[in-house]
């Protein structure tokens, strides 16, 4: 089955071709079905391969298609790599992808750009598969940019809206900045290891210098930060909510943003050699988690809250990577994909049901409330998702997030652990704030839109239910005994052996292993305290949210009035966008215009100046010519006239005179000959 891996990208490619060329005319309304069919087929192939990988022999297989670029020593080929890490990613991508396809068939019913949307969606799946399947960095980069392009196209799907096309442009450019870092990292790799294929690079990794590895790590992390929206380059994700909700669900929750995490996990052998890079990643991850969670507290737009929660959950994943728990990071990635995808689709169905309300109110929680009775399935699936993300034990979130915090704690990163826990608390709080504001309390929806609110059709609710089941089950099965679950053993071969944080981390992990051997899972005394603490925080968060939004709704308002500054700061997202606007985009505009004016009048001016100089000199030389040269010529003319008067007498007409002059001539010649 594994040899058929090349089918996975082929199906979406087929979908793109069919919908792309024949979309507008022939497959007008069933473009959605074709796209979903293609996504489904590739999902089946993935299931086949996954079953072979999980239950069968496992190991790594590469399928070579053709040589792509070769220039001197540098040669790269199109080849796919199937190994545990890519299998897990394939499962997540194709699974969630297929569900989102089915969901969006219902969601985008009747939209004029219907076929175009599904062409882009299939194109996205194609690029994501390339990214995940590629057996070398360059092919991953192809998928990387392809995914960036699709996010640009999908965010700017409703291109009439200026904000949508701006958001798309912003997303692409910020991604491009990240890709620039990724490119430099790739060159560094090629310089140090003379190849870009994973197998060769990771063989050469051990003899890399620490400085080299760190440099590569940091450069690649810039790329990851760009793609997975970490601190400096996360600004595009909240704006990306302009796109249709299934897009946000698929791209900005489950798949694309996780590409950065996958890339860092994939290059774990190099990161193992460059501990400095891991430290940076951990810190950035923690700060992002805390920072984004804090912004999420006060947002009113339902999708923005989810966006910031994605950014903070990604922060968690990067904490896991930073502390060297690669498997845990991938595990959290998987669980996050499930419950975040669920919540985004849930919010989608909420917005879908409110599409009769005025546009700006459709996503604003202040104009929702009391939808529990109207949208039962959405409500219950949403609650499961919220519980999962908050980290309540039986559900998925608890296992993966707790493992991250445990790893952080045991590898000595207490500060990071602290930030992570605070972020977890805030996550729990704003998740349930969202639930209480949208589903509970009295109905604040616009009056005439109320009778239109009804449960979404089956094509939308079935994916919700599946995802809800996955959110529940997805945590326990793979990760039951903390730090020793099935997923760790499965992923171990394709990830570097722990080794994070250099010596400190490895002892800590050893310590945990010892703890695990001594009494199953994290039974070590400190581990148990940690687990209880995590659960307490989650429940505390929920209680606080319940208290503030259910018992007396006045509390949030007076809290806001008591700390107006803080409230406004958080509401306006720490003015990050404004800061970026001021200190990056504005100067670029100014520089651009000044350069253009510089080019227009200095360089061009120089050229025109040259022409001016020639003009002036030509005029001057004109005058000069007139006065002197011409004067000289006239002078000569008058002189000759004068002399001709003088010599006129020679032309006496007398032949003798002429002969006489001839005689003189002879005389001259002879004398010249004589006195030579």
């Amino acid at each position: 089955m594994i040899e058929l891996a090349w089918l996975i990208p082929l199906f979406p490619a087929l979908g793109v071709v069919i919908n792309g060329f024949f979309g507008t005319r022939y497959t007008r309304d069933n473009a959605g079905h074709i796209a979903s069919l293609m996504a489904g087929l590739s999902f089946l192939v993935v299931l086949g391969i996954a079953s072979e990988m999980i239950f069968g022999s496992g190991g790594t297989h590469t399928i070579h298609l053709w040589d792509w670029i070769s220039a001197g020593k540098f040669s790269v080929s199109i080849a796919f790599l199937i190994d545990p890490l890519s299998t897990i990613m394939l499962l997540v991508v194709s699974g969630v992808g297929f569900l989102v396809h089915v969901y969006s068939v219902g969601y985008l019913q009747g939209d004029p750009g219907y076929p175009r949307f599904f062409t882009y969606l299939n194109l996205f799946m194609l690029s994501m598969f390339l990214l995940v399947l590629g057996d070398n960095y360059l092919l991953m980069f192809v998928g990387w940019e392809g995914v960036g392009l699709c996010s640009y196209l999908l965010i700017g799907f409703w291109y009439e809206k200026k904000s949508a096309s701006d958001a798309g442009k912003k997303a692409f450019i910020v991604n491009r900045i990240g890709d620039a870092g990724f490119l430099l990292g790739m060159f560094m790799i090629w310089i140090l290891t003379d190849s870009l294929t994973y197998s060769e690079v990771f063989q050469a990794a051990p003899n890399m210098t620490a400085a080299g590895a760190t440099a590569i790590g940091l450069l690649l992390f810039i790329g990851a930060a760009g793609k997975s929206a970490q601190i400096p380059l996360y600004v595009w994700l909240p704006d990306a909510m302009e796109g249709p909700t299934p897009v946000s669900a698929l791209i900005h929750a489950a798949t694309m943003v996780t590409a950065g995490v996958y890339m860092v996990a994939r290059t774990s052998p190099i990161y193992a050699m460059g501990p400095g890079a891991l430290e940076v990643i951990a810190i950035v991850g923690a700060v992002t988690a805390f920072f984004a969670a804090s912004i999420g507290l006060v947002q009113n737009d339902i999708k923005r809250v989810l966006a910031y929660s994605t950014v903070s959950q990604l922060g968690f994943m990067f904490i896991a990577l930073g502390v060297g728990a690669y498997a845990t990071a991938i595990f959290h990635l998987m669980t996050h994909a499930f419950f975040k995808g669920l919540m985004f689709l849930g919010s989608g169905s909420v917005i879908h049901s409110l599409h009769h309300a005025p546009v700006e109110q459709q996503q604003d929680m202040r104009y929702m409330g009391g939808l529990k009775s109207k949208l039962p399935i959405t409500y219950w699936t949403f609650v499961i998702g919220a519980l999962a993300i908050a980290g309540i034990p039986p559900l998925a979130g608890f296992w993966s997030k707790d493992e991250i915090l445990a790893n952080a704690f045991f590898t000595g990163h207490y500060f990071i652990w602290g930030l992570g826990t605070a972020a977890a608390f805030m996550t729990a709080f704003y998740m349930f704030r969202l639930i209480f504001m949208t589903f509970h309390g009295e109905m604040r929806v616009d009056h005439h839109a109320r009778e239109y609110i009804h449960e979404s059709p089956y094509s939308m609710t079935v994916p919700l239910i599946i995802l809800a089941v996955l959110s529940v089950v997805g945590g326990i099965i793979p990760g039951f005994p903390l730090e020793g679950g099935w997923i760790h053993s499965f992923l171990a071969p394709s990830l570097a052996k722990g080794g994070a944080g250099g010596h400190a981390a490895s002892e800590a992990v050893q310590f945990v292993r010892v703890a695990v051997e001594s009494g199953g899972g994290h039974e070590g005394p400190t581990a148990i305290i940690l687990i209880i603490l995590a659960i307490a925080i989650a429940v505390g968060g929920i209680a606080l949210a319940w208290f503030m939004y259910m018992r007396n709704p006045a509390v949030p308002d007076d809290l806001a009035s008591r700390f107006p500054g803080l409230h406004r700061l958080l509401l306006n997202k720490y003015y990050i966008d404004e800061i970026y606007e001021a200190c990056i985009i504005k100067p670029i505009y100014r520089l651009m215009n000044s350069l253009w004016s510089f080019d227009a009048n200095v360089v061009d001016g120089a050229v025109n100046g040259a022409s001016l100089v020639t003009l002036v000199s030509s005029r001057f030389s004109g005058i000069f010519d007139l006065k002197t040269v011409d004067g000289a010529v006239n002078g000569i003319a008058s002189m000759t006239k004068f002399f001709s008067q003088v010599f006129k007498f020679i032309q006496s007409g007398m032949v003798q005179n002429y002969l006489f002059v001839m005689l003189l001539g002879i005389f001259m010649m002879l004398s010249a000959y004589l006195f030579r």
Partner: protein
Amino acid sequence: MENFLLTLIAFTPLAGAVILMLFFKREQTVAIKVFATAVTVVDFLLSIPLWTRFDTSEAGFQFVQKVSWIPTIGVSYFLGVDGISVLLVLLTTITMIVATVCSFTAIVEREKEYYVCLLLMATGMLGTFMAVDIFLFYVFFEITLVPMYFLIGIWGGKRKLYAAIKFFLYTLFGSVLMLLGILALYFVNLKLGTGTLTFDLTELYAVGPKIPIGLQSWIFLAFFVGFAIKVPMFPFHTWLPDAHVEAPTAGSVILAGILLKMGTYGFVRFVLPLLPQASQMFVPFMVLLSIIGIIYGALVAMAQTDVKKLVAYSSVSHLGFVMLGVFALNQQGILGGQLQMINHGISTGALFLLVGIIYERRHTREISEFGGLSSVMPIYTTIFAITMLSSIGLPGLNGFVGEFLILVGAFKASYVYAAFAVIGIVLGAAYMLWLFQRMFFGTLDNPENQKLTDCTPREILYLLPMVVLMFWIGLYPRPFLSRMEASVGKVVKMVNVAAAPMNTKAAALPAGVRTQPKAKNF
């Protein structure tokens, strides 16, 4: 060995032009157009054997034809094609077909002279790429100027005369300095090299490294100015926007597609192998200029309000990349630069065609005039999107392969160069996307835009080859790269030769040749 193929390819357009001039009356516009297209198609068919019968392992010149032309001063009619120039010749023939077809509706008055100029251009360009004798190269280099001057001067836009004269004088100034360089080489070869007066490049290659560094850098500067103006590189680029804005569509397609490549081709063919030590010495200077070109070009492109000017400045930026690749002086860099020349010809050529199409409909190039075109012209939008993505170097399309190789080469030369060049990629994406957004997204408010018609089959016909090439080079660049590999390897070997002989007499004295002290006078 006598091989008439190259002469045939080079002079078929000329023959066509002459026949056009003599046997076609001015009114038979349709016949003229059909004939002109026929000539270019025949020319393209003739050039196909260049692709099929090209021996990729051979680094030297193939399909060689050498006839002594002016023996007294050692000038020979020496045509030859190697890895570096074969693709450029093919690009020229393809672009000529596209340029001819695209100007059917664009040019309405004086068609006969127009197509004669176009065909003359073709001969000039093909000759330049095929000439192996420097004198012959210079002759063809000059020939291309005159028809382009007329193309811009007669059929151009509002400020056509200013632009035409500026273009002509600027390039002429450059080529005159280049002539100085050629003559210096010619005489140096007399003293130091083979002792015979010859313009033959293959012989001059031997004398190149032996020239003392002092003189070599002077010759380098002469060639540099000549080719830098043509490329155009940073300080000498101001003629390009004017020339592009005022030139007719076909004119700017050829100008961007082929003429700019003569500059970079000149560097790879003449400057690098002939003046290796000077090139090595000038690398920091050249790389600085090209990086400025990249970033400066991109930034200024962002500030443009005229589409064609924006694309012109983007060419400055792209060719900055090519020059960066060329002066990385390693196999990947030069190969990347060489491939990027072809890619730039295709993607920018296509961009100009597209701008031409919209200009024919709306007779304006102000970006603010357009908006929301994608709902009115879907096919046009998709082709524009593909071309734009190819020019900003999206993987899977041709731009990426070239750009990636250049950056790999530049990084190998020194990571500082690559770090700055990568900024160029980001800026490139920025201004192209901004343009795409302003033209195609947004609401369709301008009334004239509503009644715009989508691409006619003819327009799609001449855009199709470009798009096909973009995907072909993007997905499977193997045949292109393998053809250039051997010759670029030879150039790389020649450039990285040992340090130049110092300027002192002793060092300049290769065994047995008695030379006076290196007086500067000759």
